[in-house]
């Protein structure tokens, strides 16, 4: 089929017809025996000859011959050795050489498995006549032809079916060929439905160039099988687009499964087979627990792992492609590791674009590949609670590399640290681990499972531009509010960076918003951008109370709203003229419009904006300063004089005490004198 003849079938047919006309005209000029001469003897139905131990009929049915494609020819055109000979001829006429006319087919056949067997002298090898017949050869399109599509399976099946000498004595890998074929989708079409366009043996194996599948030129070689099948299944790439990119399929068939890996030869069905190419064959070696590769890797395969996995119905060779069944160890031809994207094509493409894929492509072995997260033979779906990709297990899975000190965390230069620990303590982490909520956001909920990109990448799900949508996947109602708020990029057009969810809620430490910590931090969070206004807030009662660490006071979002923040002059704002009183009344029942005139962000440092406050403050400050200066000077001046007075007082006290002591002594002396006197 790779010869020119197959490529120009119409031209060849014309050429052949012309040649035959030429031959038909030729006998007129030839001197040899005519057909009638030959038939003088060969019309005798009892004419036989003994060849070896076989008795072969030499009868020629002239009617059939005349109706055959070779009808216009004379006998000697084929039996050329008898040309010009006298009759009756000697027995032992050499065999007819079809190739004298059908040279292309002859060449192909000679190079084929059948031709080489003939050359070897294999008695079982088929000659032209074994398939095509001899004197009654009909055009292929004639339904009575031996080689019309409907007959082909039987022609080939004469040898290639169970119990024939060929099947028993020659090494043929496939078994029950005819039987399997007859049950296959092709066989059913041909043999049961009479669909002459359905594939027969020759559609795949070619009529004459039958080669073993190990031969690179064989139509059923791995490299060629796709082309062979697409002869009929021209648009099969479209059907398999999800699995295999069309171009890859043809160009790099070695890394991809060939058609026959899934659609087994001769058994082709429009469904996958549960049993693949040769799982049992693989397990002949890989069931050995001590099987080691040359580099020491353990090659033991726990077959139960596969059986219990998502890939239970996938054959070994569908993943471990490149196996070659003609080798004793079919796996020795494997040169590439398993490529999951053969089937999981879309995921494979995502992975290639992801940070993991980029690092992997750069040749860094630290990068995780499919099996690092999903495992190998025991892959379970993300819905299986014992799967490593089940939501509750995802943080630990990612943490294997992204935990502080691990290989991913070490190379990471961004702002996020203690990611796993923070996540575990976050509302999402608690929801997952403590409340067992599998719908809680895990690593992959925000970062995706396969298209993980750094936040700087515009395509990343955690890029600021995409964060609202990422969070909105769960928090849809919030996203709806947010996209209409003043912080949304769709509302405010600015060069400045607008806040998105994680700017207020953080990325991994997300807390309940009714936690004291969150409520108190919100002021400095808002203050990161609204610095001045946050500062002035802290000059008011609300700000001072929250600064002391109490939450039962108005915080930014109590007045401005949280996700639905609008400019204060926007009618939708909580602080618009229509809404502000109600907003104050949330805490201050009975608040009036006049009450709402309280300046919640007032500062006494801005004479232009708040002249009253400014001058009040400076009036009070002047009063304070002058009072303290006056009091201070008065005190300082007094101090030395007071010291002086103290010294004088102490001196006086001392004098008084001395005087008192003196008088006491005098008194006692007097007593003594009196006593003396009395005596």
């Amino acid at each position, binding site marked *: 089929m790779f010869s020119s003849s197959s490529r120009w079938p119409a031209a060849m047919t014309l050429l052949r017809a012309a040649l035959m006309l030429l031959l038909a005209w030729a006998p007129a000029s030839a001197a040899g025996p005519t057909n009638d001469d030959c038939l003088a003897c060969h019309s005798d139905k009892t004419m036989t000859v003994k060849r070896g131990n076989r008795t072969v009929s030499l009868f020629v049915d002239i009617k059939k011959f005349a109706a055959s494609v070779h009808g216009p020819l004379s006998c000697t055109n084929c039996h050329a050795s008898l040309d010009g000979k006298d009759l009756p001829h000697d027995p032992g006429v050499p065999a007819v050489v079809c190739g004298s006319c059908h040279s292309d087919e002859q060449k192909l056949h000679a190079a084929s498995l059948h031709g080489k067997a003939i050359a070897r002298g294999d008695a079982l090898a088929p000659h032209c006549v074994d398939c095509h017949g001899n004197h009654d050869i009909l055009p292929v399109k004639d339904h009575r032809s031996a080689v019309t599509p409907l007959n082909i399976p039987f022609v080939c099946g004469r040898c290639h079916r169970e119990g024939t000498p060929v099947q028993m004595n020659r090494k043929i890998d496939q078994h029950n060929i005819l039987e399997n074929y007859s049950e296959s989708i092709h066989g059913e079409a041909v043999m049961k439905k009479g669909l002459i366009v359905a594939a027969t043996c020759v559609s795949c194996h070619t009529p004459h160039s039958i080669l073993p599948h190990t031969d690179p030129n064989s139509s059923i070689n791995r490299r060629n099988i796709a082309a062979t099948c697409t002869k009929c299944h021209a648009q099969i790439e479209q059907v398999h687009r999800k699995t295999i990119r069309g171009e890859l399929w043809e160009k790099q068939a070695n890394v991809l499964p060939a058609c026959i890996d899934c659609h087994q030869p001769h058994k082709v069905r429009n469904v996958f087979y549960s049993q693949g190419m040769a799982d049992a064959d693989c397990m002949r070696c890989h069931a050995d627990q001590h099987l080691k590769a040359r580099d020491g890797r353990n090659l033991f395969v726990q077959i139960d792992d596969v059986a219990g996995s998502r890939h239970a119905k996938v054959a070994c060779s569908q993943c471990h492609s490149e196996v070659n069944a003609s080798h004793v160890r079919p796996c020795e031809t494997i040169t590439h590791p398993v490529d999951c994207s053969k089937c999981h094509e879309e995921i494979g493409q995502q992975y290639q674009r992801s940070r993991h894929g980029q690092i992997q492509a750069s040749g860094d072995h630290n990068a995780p590949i499919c099996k690092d997260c999903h495992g190998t033979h025991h892959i379970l779906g993300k819905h299986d609670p014992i799967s490593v990709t089940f939501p509750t297990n995802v943080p630990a899975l990612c943490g294997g590399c992204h935990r502080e000190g691990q290989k991913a965390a070490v190379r990471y230069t961004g702002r996020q640290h203690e990611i796993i620990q923070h996540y575990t303590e976050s509302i999402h982490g608690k929801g997952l681990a403590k409340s067992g909520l599998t719908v809680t956001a895990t690593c992959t909920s925000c970062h995706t499972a396969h298209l993980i990109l750094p936040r700087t990448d515009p395509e990343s799900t955690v890029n600021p531009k995409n964060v609202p949508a990422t969070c909105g996947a769960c928090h849809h109602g919030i996203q709806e509010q947010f996209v209409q708020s003043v912080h949304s990029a769709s509302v405010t057009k600015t060069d400045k960076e607008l806040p998105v969810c994680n700017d207020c809620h953080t990325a991994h430490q997300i807390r309940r918003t009714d936690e004291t910590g969150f409520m108190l931090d919100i002021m400095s969070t808002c203050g990161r951008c609204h610095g001045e206004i946050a500062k002035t807030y802290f000059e008011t009662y609300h700000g001072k109370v929250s600064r002391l660490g109490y939450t039962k006071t108005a915080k930014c979002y109590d007045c401005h709203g949280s996700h639905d923040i609008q400019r204060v002059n926007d009618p939708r704002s909580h602080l618009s003229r229509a809404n502000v009183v109600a907003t104050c009344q949330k805490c201050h029942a009975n608040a*009036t419009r006049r009450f709402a005139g*309280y*300046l919640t962000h007032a500062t*006494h440092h801005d004479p232009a904006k708040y002249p009253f406050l400014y001058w009040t403050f400076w009036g009070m*400050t002047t009063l304070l300063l002058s009072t303290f200066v006056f009091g201070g000077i008065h005190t300082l001046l007094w*101090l030395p004089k007071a010291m002086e007075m103290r010294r004088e007082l102490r001196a006086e006290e001392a004098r008084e005490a001395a005087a008192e002591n003196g008088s006491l002594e005098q008194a006692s002396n007097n007593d003594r004198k009196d006593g003396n006197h009395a005596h």
Partner: protein
Amino acid sequence: MPTDLEIRASDPQTPAPVRELKRPDREFVRFTRLQRALHASMIISFISLATTGLTLKFSYTSWAATVSRLLGGFQTAGFIHRAAAVLMFGVFSTHLYDLVQHKKREKLSWLGLVFGPGSMLFNRQDLNQFIGTMKWFVGRGPRPQYGRWTYWEKFDYFAVFWGIAVIGSTGLTLWFPVLFTRLLPGSFLNIATIIHSDEALLATGFIFTVHFFNTHLRPEKFPMDTVVFTGHMPIAELKRDKPLEYEALVKSGHLEEHMEEPQPEVVVRAIRAFAWCALSVGFCIVVWIIYAMVFAYR
């Protein structure tokens, strides 16, 4: 220290040096029982107000948060603040009532009450005494002869009078903002906040420094003058500090009416303990204010 104790234990004959207080038989009564009670109440009220109020004013210091927590949180602190304010208002109105009673007792006219000899209002004599005091300070004259109320005592008195009026009124505005903004614009609350807070700072700062020095800490009184707690002062002190009053009393012959037995020893001790507490808290607050204003101001 242990050695000292050993020495002391080994020599029980030597008594610890005790400064014997010579207790006079009779003392001059400067303040009535009610006035003393009012002053004590005011101390409690004032310190409570200052402590709780300053936690808000200096909320940016970690001190403030600690004190606020100690007091039981900002809501409890606020409750204490308001309760103390009510006490202060009570002290204020009781004093005003007492003034009216005083007027009745002494059969004074309103003018007599305001401008009489016992009046707290500044008069020409105070100006003269102030000038005299300044001269004395710089060594250009003798110590002036002060009367019953010196000009700095009158200043303290009016500082409190003014303070209660200003801080009290603005405080009420902030206490009942919804009520007051039925009449006043909302931004008046901002102004009231500034006035309330700064006036309070003035009051605390002044009381805990200038007043403390003028009455307690000046060397000849150090460490404290207990007259306002006991109501009594030695006659010698009256003679020395308030010579004009003494002379007037001697001249009128009413001095004996103003003399009383001294307070019992235990009462004086209790009073001293209380005064020490008040002084200490006052000093702490001063330190806090200075720290907050100078080192942590934001």
